[in-house]
């Protein structure tokens, strides 16, 4: 099977959808002539032209809102935020307009828009550029939230997101853009709301999303190697809709759960998942659900300290061992 990068997988998904549907456009800051700040859209302007690949001024509120308005009339915009952190500049357009339009119109208006970009820390760009707003986004009924951790899922989920009739916030990761994985040639879709067991295990379920899954897989290797612990790793892939069944099935099997994510701990996705597990699989638990997040402060700039602040293989292993005590 061909091996391509996460970045190339995203590009392939958007390209295939642009070719499939004349209403799909890619817009954002530097996506066209500049070839994308992170080169996700490299070559797409040359291939598809300025009608389909559109550079916007630095006006997130206006261009995201414009995408919402265009979506009401049947355009299917894929809007790139250079950093997902800039969502806050367009907060009203995303969470008052995109999220609520269908509801406030009693179902008369749809908003098939994808808002995508990297939402991660670990690149020493400081607190303003390192937000991980999965839980903030998923908090809003009407919004769907997707966080792929592999090239395969990046492509399959992006294609599903573009075809979705609801607004989808698609959170990528600059540290994953260059990571490679097997991606089949041609058409396939990964449905939203389907978690994936990345590795089977018996002693503990490490559940999470985003790049933390890659760390969890390495942690599972180490736990096996050094402690003979068999950890199952479950990647949510999609935060909302949420595959509760796969989470609960894993916990019912292993009886212990650790949630890993890059977000801050307060009201995080892991907090929600812990509540769901407590509610629906309490009798299967041999230990409290543990959560491993970034250390609770704004993202620190200092290079060695940012590494400490974020989840790491060391910290995940330590948390897993505590869960198994």
């Amino acid at each position, binding site marked *: 099977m061909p091996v391509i990068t996460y970045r190339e997988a995203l590009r392939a998904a958007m390209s295939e959808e642009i070719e499939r549907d004349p209403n799909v*456009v890619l817009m954002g800051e530097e996506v066209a002539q500049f070839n994308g700040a992170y080169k996700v859209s490299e070559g797409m302007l040359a291939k598809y032209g*300025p*009608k389909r690949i559109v550079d*916007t*001024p630095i*006006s997130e*509120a*206006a*261009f*995201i*809102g*414009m*995408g*919402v*308005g*265009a*979506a*009401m*009339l*049947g*355009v299917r915009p894929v809007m790139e935020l250079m950093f997902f952190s800039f969502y806050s500049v367009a907060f*009203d*357009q995303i969470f*008052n*307009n995109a999220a609520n*339009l*269908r*509801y*406030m*119109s*009693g*179902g*008369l*208006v*749809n908003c*098939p828009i994808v808002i995508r970009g990297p939402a991660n820390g670990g690149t020493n760009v400081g607190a303003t550029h390192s937000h991980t707003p999965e839980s903030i986004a998923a908090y809003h*009924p*009407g919004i*769907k939230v997707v966080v792929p951790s592999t090239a395969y899922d990046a492509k399959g989920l992006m294609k*599903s997101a573009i*075809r*979705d*009739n*609801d607004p989808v916030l698609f959170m990528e990761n600059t540290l994953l853009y260059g990571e490679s994985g097997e991606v089949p040639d041609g058409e396939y*879709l990964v*449905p*939203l*709301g*389907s*978690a994936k067991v990345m590795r089977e295990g018996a002693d503990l379920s490490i559940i999470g999303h985003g790049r933390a899954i890659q760390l969890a897989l390495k942690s599972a290797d180490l736990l096996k190697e050094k402690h003979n612990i068999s950890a199952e790793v479950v990647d949510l892939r*999609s935060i*909302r*809709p*949420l*595959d*509760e*069944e796969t989470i609960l099935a894993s916990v019912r099997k292993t009886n212990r759960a650790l949630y890993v994510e890059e977000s801050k701990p307060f009201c995080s996705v892991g907090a*929600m998942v812990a509540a*769901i597990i407590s509610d629906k699989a309490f009798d299967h638990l041999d230990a409290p659900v543990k959560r491993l997040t970034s250390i609770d402060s704004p993202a620190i700039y200092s290079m060695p300290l940012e590494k400490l602040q974020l989840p790491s293989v060391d910290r995940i292993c330590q948390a897993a061992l505590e869960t198994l005590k």
Partner: protein
Amino acid sequence: MTKKTTPAKKTQVAGYNARQAPINARLGHDELIALYRDMVRIRRFEERCLRSYQQGKIGGFLHLYIGQESIAVGCVSVMGQHDHIITAYRDHGHALAVGMGMNEMMAENYGKYTGCSKGKGGSMHYFDPTRNFWGGHGIVGGQIPLGVGLAYALKYKGRKGAALAFMGDGAVNQGAVHESYNLAALWSLPVLFVIENNGYSMGTSQDRSSAGPSLAERAEGYGMNWDIIENGHDVLEVRDRVAAALKLAHEQSLPSVLEIRTYRYRGHSVADPDTTYRDKKEIEDYKATKDPLMFCQNQLLAEKVLTQEIIAKIEESARAEAETSAQFAEASPFPTADDIQKDVYWEADNPADRKSQGALFFS
């Protein structure tokens, strides 16, 4: 997209007479009477809304359009098949002007299932996509980027149409509005930014909230066409001047900022106190000299287009229609508890076509 600029059209020329403008001169009696009737219908509907509000039948806010009727009616009367409209929360006038029915509007205000948004949006959030009406939006200025998006979609799809994006004078100081101006001018989008300047952003006068000589003139900074319609109470003047901007949008895909001077008789929302920032005399003076209904009525009476008999019939009919809508709303059912989680996700409402899996809702 190529960038175009056009010389700014400054205020009206001397000797200008809106009645004699070709777009108005060619109107037949029936069409003139229809303009008058639409304004009367808006006012009587809103007066009936006010009564219901005072009776506790309508919740939350009630932003009345009374005093501004000539703008919605004038603008909508020059719109064509591919022209679209979006506005803020003072949306009753626009909704009636595009042809929405009083029943569905009043029922929406009552929070009833028969309302245009099934009781989920309320007075501020009317929608009717079949009539090119895209809301009804609650956040000051927040609808303006959406209006630019409508224009973008029209241009993208090659339709000869424009978006009319309405806002109040308070909205012009929102960042999203300025960003929208820039996008519209930069990309030559067929959008009319229509500022209904009633002099007050809630309880703060224009002098106390907006810098610069006029609101429309800010368009200069974006190389955009602009115009100030001083006599916003004259539905015929509104028609003529808006039609000119619409022509620019249709024929050259150029945006415009139109500032239409008007006045609102009631509080920002009707429950808001109305005496802290203006005195009653100011309201009475405007009503006596510039009331849009009175102005139109006098003009059409003088031209013998209207007669007292016709006026009486229009009045009677509008009052009856409004009263019927209140009865309809009263008799209609509320949404059920099951309806709370409908119309949130397209996929949840269309389970046969659902592609995603997993839980969309949580408890």
